[in-house]
């Protein structure tokens, strides 16, 4: 489980560098590091489908961002009280982070079962990445695991869920993508067409 914390700290450091650095290109590269860290995390959580999608989308997004930033660089606004503001924001973030760690303290499965036996009403969060739904009564994912191959015939359980049991979600996702692509192409192309007509004249 310690690999998750190492990855998490790596991603947090990359995010801080991406916000704070002066160079736009290194900021984009740090965003890429965050994305690849997330992909590795999905891989360690045994979710190869999401890991493949994450890494592919990350590569494509990085290409677009680097292509957009490599030719021009933005200047950052720096005030007189930059140091003071940075220190205050870092302290606030650290306090919130530590408080969150204290409140959302996780326990391993054995500890939770011990607590359940003595105090049945106390609720405790399990550790990150624990397969909680494998022993919860009446969990939907258990039904999927048991009936997925028999009812859909697909060997990849993720495909049988996103395209059969939960196909409405995929329809909504496809509709959102379709609509946003239509909007982007219409807006971007109209401007360029106008510009090309002006250039022809």
């Amino acid at each position, binding site marked *: 489980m310690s690999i998750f914390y190492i990855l998490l700290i790596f991603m947090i450091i990359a995010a801080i560098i991406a916000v704070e650095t002066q160079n736009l290109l290194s900021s984009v590269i740090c965003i890429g590091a965050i994305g690849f860290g997330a992909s590795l995390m999905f891989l360690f959580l045994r979710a*190869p*489908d999401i*890991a*493949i*999608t994450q890494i*592919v*989308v990350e*590569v*494509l997004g990085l*290409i*677009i961002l680097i*292509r*957009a930033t490599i030719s021009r660089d933005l200047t950052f606004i720096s005030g007189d009280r930059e140091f003071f503001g940075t220190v205050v924001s870092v302290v606030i973030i650290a306090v919130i982070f530590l408080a969150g760690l204290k409140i959302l303290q996780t326990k391993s499965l054995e500890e939770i079962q011990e607590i359940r036996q003595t105090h049945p009403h106390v609720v405790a969060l399990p550790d990150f990445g624990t397969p909680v739904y494998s022993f919860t009564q009446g969990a939907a994912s258990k039904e999927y695991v048991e009936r997925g*191959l028999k*009812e*859909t*015939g*697909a*060997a*990849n359980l*993720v*495909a*049988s869920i*996103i*395209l*059969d049991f939960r*196909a*409405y979600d*995929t*329809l909504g996702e*496809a*509709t959102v*993508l*379709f609509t946003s*692509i239509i909007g*982007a*192409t219409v807006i*971007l*192309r109209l*401007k*360029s067409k106008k*510009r090309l007509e002006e*250039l022809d004249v």
Partner: protein
Amino acid sequence: MKGMTVIVKTIASWVKILIFVFGIYIILFGHLTPGGGFAGGVILASSYVLLMLAFGRGFVEENLPSAVASKLDCLGAFLFAMIATLGLAFGGSFFINFVYQKFLPGEPLHLISAGTIPLSNIAIGLKVGASLFLVIFSLSVFCKDFRCKEI
């Protein structure tokens, strides 16, 4: 912009077909191995992005005009909705897996199995690949336009 150096152009012309075939594999075997329509579609789009980066925008525009790409995009969305509506027509419920239940059960762990799931994967892969190619193409057009205005 006429693209990059000769080295990049040669390597890109060798690698492009491998990336394209890998995307098709990810889409077609989406119901057997990790992957699926979305990831495979993005890989298909990235092969064209590689061509666009190596050879310039005009080369890609000759190979796959944006009008054809938008038609492919609409075709993918239409196919996905059509599979769902055919489920309503044949199976009595929207999005029901009518091919697996009525016509072609197939064997599990074979390529021809799982009914409508590989068909939906193909539709989604077509849609995602064409639409991502379209948005990157439009962004590159817009970028050129933006520079024209500055000069």
